[in-house]
């Protein structure tokens, strides 16, 4: 499906995607009540989220071995699309009209960059 550079770009996008999931996991846990300050950090959800952040640094590094750093303006900002969408799906959050417009403009930018 993905060959050559495309494969490494896909790895980078997966890295951004799982990092976005981790951000939503932190938000899910932040919505819960905890009996102590320590339990806010030392719980399976938060520890898993930070593990995912750690994993994503390796995936990004692996991808950057071949993908030019100049591609970062088009790949890294995908988190600004992934996080709200995952938030809607998992947390039933609402996306404001302004944010939808912003995401639309970003998609246009990604298309121009990819031409």
């Amino acid at each position, binding site marked *: 499906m993905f060959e050559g550079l495309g494969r490494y770009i896909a790895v980078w996008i997966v*890295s*951004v995607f799982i*990092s*976005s999931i*981790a*951000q939503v996991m*932190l*938000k899910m846990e*932040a919505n819960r009540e905890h009996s102590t300050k320590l339990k806010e950090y030392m719980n399976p959800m938060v520890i898993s989220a930070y593990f995912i*952040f*750690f994993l*994503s*640094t390796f995936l*990004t*590094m*692996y*991808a*950057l*071995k071949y993908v*030019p*750093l*100049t*591609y*970062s*303006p*088009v790949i*890294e*900002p995908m*988190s*600004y699309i992934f*996080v*709200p969408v995952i*938030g809607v799906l998992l947390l039933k*959050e609402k996306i*404001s*009209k*302004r*944010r*939808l*417009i*912003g*995401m*639309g*403009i*970003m*998609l*246009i*930018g*990604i*298309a*121009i*960059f*990819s*031409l």
Partner: protein
Amino acid sequence: MDKNHSGIRVGEVTLKWFIALHLSLIVNSLAGVASKMAGKQKFLSFRFCLCYGMVLVITFAFALAWQQVLKHMSLTFAFTNKPITIIWGLVWGVLVFHEQVSWKMILGSAVILLGIMVGVSGDSGESAGKSLPPEGGKENV
């Protein structure tokens, strides 16, 4: 928020904290440089550990700096400025790794930057912060 109303201001913040914000964002963008350098090294070699260590140090330093600058401005203001980091990715790619950049890439990046700023600036500071924590994805745009 910044209580000091004297001196030159940029939007809601003093020039000093505006510069501090952007210096921290520049430092943050260097994590991408260190990450690419690490990716070019043999896994777990000394140079790899050095470069990957730099990624972690930069990320940690940014988290501390971000916390400090947020004391002097709203989250919305900080998050509206944060996407400028993507432009630094372009700059470092050209300056450090001698990568090629086309006008389409520059124009596309500018449009993406505009899209992020439009999307983020529309939220309240609280929701912007909740949706987009400073991690922004590890090596952090």
